[in-house]
């Protein structure tokens, strides 16, 4: 396994690559965490509106993103 620092050094430009790659990885993690939490809330019988309120988005937005998963 290669560390992020080695990768960046290979590419010749250190900081932006490490930072950007970390942001991309965090975004992917965030999407997975959100899906898991929404599935759990739905399984517990939460309505879409309540999930949307907690996530700070509209009911339509959360339904469009997660509604197909079931």
């Amino acid at each position, binding site marked *: *396994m*290669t*560390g*992020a*620092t080695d*990768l960046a050094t290979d590419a010749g430009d250190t900081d932006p690559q*490490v930072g950007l*790659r*970390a942001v*991309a*990885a*965090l975004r*992917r*993690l965030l*999407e*997975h*965490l959100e*899906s*898991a*939490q929404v*599935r*759990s809330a739905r399984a517990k019988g939460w309505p879409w509106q309540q999930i949307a309120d907690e996530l700070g988005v509209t009911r339509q937005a959360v339904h469009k993103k997660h509604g197909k*998963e*079931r």
Partner: protein
Amino acid sequence: MFERFTVPARLVVKAAVEESQAAGDPVIDEEHLAYALFRDPDGAAARLCGGTVTLDGLKAAFAAANRRGGLSDTDTAALRELGIDVDEVVATFTSPLGPDAMLPPRKAANRHRPFSKAAKRVLTLALQEGVSRRERALDERDLLLGLLRNKALAAGVFEGLGVRYTDLLTHPA
């Protein structure tokens, strides 16, 4: 789109659909394209990687990543350098939800199964690879290069197995 694919490349896409169906996954994702490419241990993709990548190795790496919020060992190492312990974050977050909470729900084999956004990008990048080398059709090597160029989960998994886009570019086709 698939009229630009060589016959072996079309078979890989077909095999990817089968891999997704067999696993009951809701979409056809990067991992299914990767499994399809490496189904044949003597196939083009395995030869290009010099035998370092096996189907079992890929499946283990993707399974671990899926339980860890879609992050490969490479991603996890990158975040650790920034002081973020992904395993701890995921464990804390999902412990009330059960061990399989991060995995998508299973889907019946006969239901409609779309390509994921990431998998679509891989196919688009693979086409670009073919075009950039003025190939007449997209082959298995282009599909593998597409996976490595997408910089999503698959690229990190392959990097953990010692396969990088830049190395493969210089490898004779």
